[in-house]
């Protein structure tokens, strides 16, 4: 199949996937989009929202539509790393001898839902670090590869912070996107009620499988980025670094730390994925701008003044986006 055909097929599959998920999840188009973009870009997603908004349902529906193995981990304060990764157990062999056998943990699936990830201890949370970054687990001195593709979709409750352990910056940085799930609108709520209380059972059709997803991930990485668009992404990232030449005023005022290079990678990958979903062969400024909030909101660390004044990273990112000039990177062509 030629690349052109692949691109056409990708777009088609993407739209089908979206509409399939839409059968179960009412509204939340930007969340669904963001999740799918992250999946096709090969990243993990952190979903933050109050309970009952359909975060878990989204992940479950996604796993059904993608025909991927799915495991759910409910994070509790007493959860141990071995509960996630697996452990060596003593088993009796056929010969009657005792031997150690590694029992895989729930992380060994394509799609892992880490529910309320902030309720587990840092020790347990850090067990996810290697898995999310390296896509492998080291247990009993042995490195075991995780399934491919591998996604972690974590959820977080913004309220009820007592007895929780906020994710460390290192772990936050490993999430591709942080998506904030909001309340549904009136119409959406009505639809939710209609769908969930009338006894109907909605079947989700498999649209893609793991191999296809891997193929599409490779395709997305091939999408070219024009120089001026890439420069724009770079300028955006640099604008988040306080006490530098490129920092904006709001950065210096409210940020302690800015985005790491992973933020730039995320921006570009997400923009590439968005471009392909719209049937374009090139990345545009709009693609970058649509990815700014989900890609960078969890990578900026506000200072005390921002917290005291209630300034969120979303607000800071809006200001930075407004101030950074898109056109500065347009080159003269002869």
């Amino acid at each position, binding site marked *: 199949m030629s*690349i*052109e055909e692949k*691109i056409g097929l990708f777009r088609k599959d993407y739209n089908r996937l979206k509409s399939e998920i839409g059968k179960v999840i009412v509204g939340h188009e930007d969340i669904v989009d963001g999740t799918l973009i992250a999946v096709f870009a090969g990243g993990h997603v952190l979903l933050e929202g109050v309970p009952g908004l359909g975060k878990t349902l989204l992940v479950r529906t996604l796993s059904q539509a993608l025909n991927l193995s799915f495991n759910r981990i409910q994070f509790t304060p007493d959860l141990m790393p071995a509960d996630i990764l697996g452990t060596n157990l003593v088993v009796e062999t056929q010969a009657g001898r005792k031997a150690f056998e590694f029992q895989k943990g729930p992380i060994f699936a394509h799609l892992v839902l880490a529910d309320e990830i902030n309720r587990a201890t840092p020790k347990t949370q850090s067990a996810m670090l290697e898995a999310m970054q390296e896509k492998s687990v080291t247990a009993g001195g042995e490195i075991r590869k995780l399934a491919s593709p591998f996604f972690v979709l974590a959820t977080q409750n913004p309220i009820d912070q007592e007895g929780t352990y906020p994710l460390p910056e290192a772990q936050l940085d490993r999430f591709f996107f942080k998506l904030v799930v909001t309340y549904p609108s009136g119409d959406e709520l009505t639809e939710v009620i209609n769908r969930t209380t009338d006894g109907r059972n909605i079947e989700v059709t498999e649209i893609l499988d793991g191999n296809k997803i891997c193929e599409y991930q490779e395709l997305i990485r*091939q*999408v*070219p980025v*024009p*120089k*001026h*668009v890439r420069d724009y992404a770079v300028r955006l990232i640099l604008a988040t670094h306080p006490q530098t030449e490129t920092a904006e005023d709001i950065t210096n005022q409210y940020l302690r730390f800015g985005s790491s290079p992973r933020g730039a990678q995320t921006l570009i990958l997400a923009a590439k994925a968005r*471009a392909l979903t*719209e049937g*374009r*062969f*090139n*990345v*545009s*400024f*709009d*693609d970058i701008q649509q990815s700014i909030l989900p890609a960078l909101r969890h990578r900026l660390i506000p200072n005390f003044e921002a917290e005291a004044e209630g300034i969120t990273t979303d607000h800071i990112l809006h200001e930075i986006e407004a101030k950074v000039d898109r*056109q500065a990177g*347009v*080159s*003269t*062509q*002869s």
Partner: protein
Amino acid sequence: MKDRKLVEQKLMHAGKRRRWQQSWMGLWKGFFWGALLWLSTLIVFKLFPVPFEVLAWSGAAWVTMTIIGPARSLFKPVDLGETAQWVDDQCKLKERFTAALEFQERETWGNFILKDAKHFIEQIKPRNLVCFKLPSAAKWSVLVLAVSVGLGFAPEYRTEAYTEKEREEAIIKNTGKQLVTFIRQEIKKRPPALKPTESAMADVAELGTQLSKGKLKRSNALRDLAKVTEKLKKEHARLDRKPALKRMQKAARTPAESASPKNLNAMQKRMDTLKQQMGENATPSSDLQEMQRELDQLKQTASGLQSPEGGMNEALKQSLTQQLGEMAQKAAQTGISSEQLEAALANLKSGDLEKFLKNLSDAQIDMEKTAQMSSELQNLQMQMDQIGKNLAEQLEKGQSTFARQNLIDKSNKLTSGQLSEEELQKMLKELQNAIPEAADYGIVQDFLKKASKQMQQGDEEGAAKSLQTAADELENLMDQFGDMQSLMASLENLATAKMSVGNGMSWGQSNKPGFKPGGKPGKGVGTWGEEGGTWQKKLPQRAADNSGVTRPEMAGKGPSDRGEGKLVDGLTSTKVKGQFNSGAPMPSITLKGLSIKGQSRVEFTESVTAAQADAQSALSQQRVPRAYQTTVRDYFDELGP
């Protein structure tokens, strides 16, 4: 390559069209900023005493900015990248074209991008992308213009001192220009013969230039004017001491001097023509005037001829017939045409009143014409009488033009060698008679003596040369006299300049009669004064002396130095001579005299004599303020036919 080329071509085309739009925006931006600059300058101009040139420069900057605004965009080369971005934004194509410019067709993805770009660019019409709507700068410009127009009606704030200073500068500049103009005209009319005169005139021109540039303040201008005036006065006084020039000055005031050897012939011819027209026994103009008076009376009487019942008043008719008959007879006897009178008599007798009155009017016209001719003839005769008949007379009267021509004629005659002995003797006698009169003429006398001796010795050629040399020397003296006149005129103008600058009055106001020594006649003494300010060298047309009285001296007395005189106690002036009230015009002096307006029926010389007598009386009785006595005396001295 094809796709890329096509995309580039289309973008180039769009870029060129976009330049027009940018020029349109640039035009309004330039206009707006120029208007803003103008408004700011106008506000400053209204509030502070800045010169008007600042506003003018600001206006020029406005125009320049309005031109530069669009020109910058119009002549800027098309930037494909910028154009591609612009088209992407206009058509919301999400950087398709900017990406297309970056990639090559040989690359896989480059190929897709270019194909995609080509697909979209074919659908785009650059004409539709360009929109010539009025930008916000245009709307703001309207506001700025409205404010500027409103401010235009607001009077600018200037202190009185500043306004006065501006006025003073303008007066000084104008005075300078007038001086420069005058000097140029004077040098053109009478090029200076002497070096000191040339230097003095050059100083005046230089001063005029300095004044016209506005480089001198009032005090410095007055100081410089005084300096230059002093210099000119010295030079004038030096020339004035020469007796020959004094004689020429005296002659210049007589009408005879206005004649020249060239137009003598014309004068003679005119006299002959008039004599021919009037007949050999021309009636004296006094008789003509009497007859004119009688005719006027007759005509007035004739207006009552018509009786109320119709027909004519017989008694009056009889009386008129008699008077008319006598008049016609008298006219015939005195050589005046009586045709109209006789025709009137005939019509009166026949009872044709209308024709009678018409004939009377025609007779009046004829008589008036005859009177004019008679008057003209008399004037010409008077002038001719005034011209010296021989060399001695010419030299004595200061008629240097005639004297010089006389010498040249004699020299030519001697050179021709065709003179008879009688003629030679006559010439010698004339020369010898002229020698005493030539005493005031310097070496002219010497050359006349030499010529006379040479003639006695029979050396006619030598004598001719001597006479020619004498003529040349006379011409030299005439040139010096011309210089003197130029200096005089320059002094008059300098005085006007001093008055203008000193009193802060315009040139025209300072140049009015009575404001300078030797000024021209003013309005208080008749309307015959010439406006030119100089003696007009032309033949007077109507002025004539019909009193029949031969005056011993017709020429004006000329300027005479009578000294300051001794003032009667109690009449000592409280004002220093030459200083006037600042800003106040000089008071006018009313003289008793014949104040005549309109068409004068009184002879000029009669009025002049009366005015001169009155002026003399006023001066001797100390009725004229001391500061003005010289001016008044000089003025009336220069009056004359």
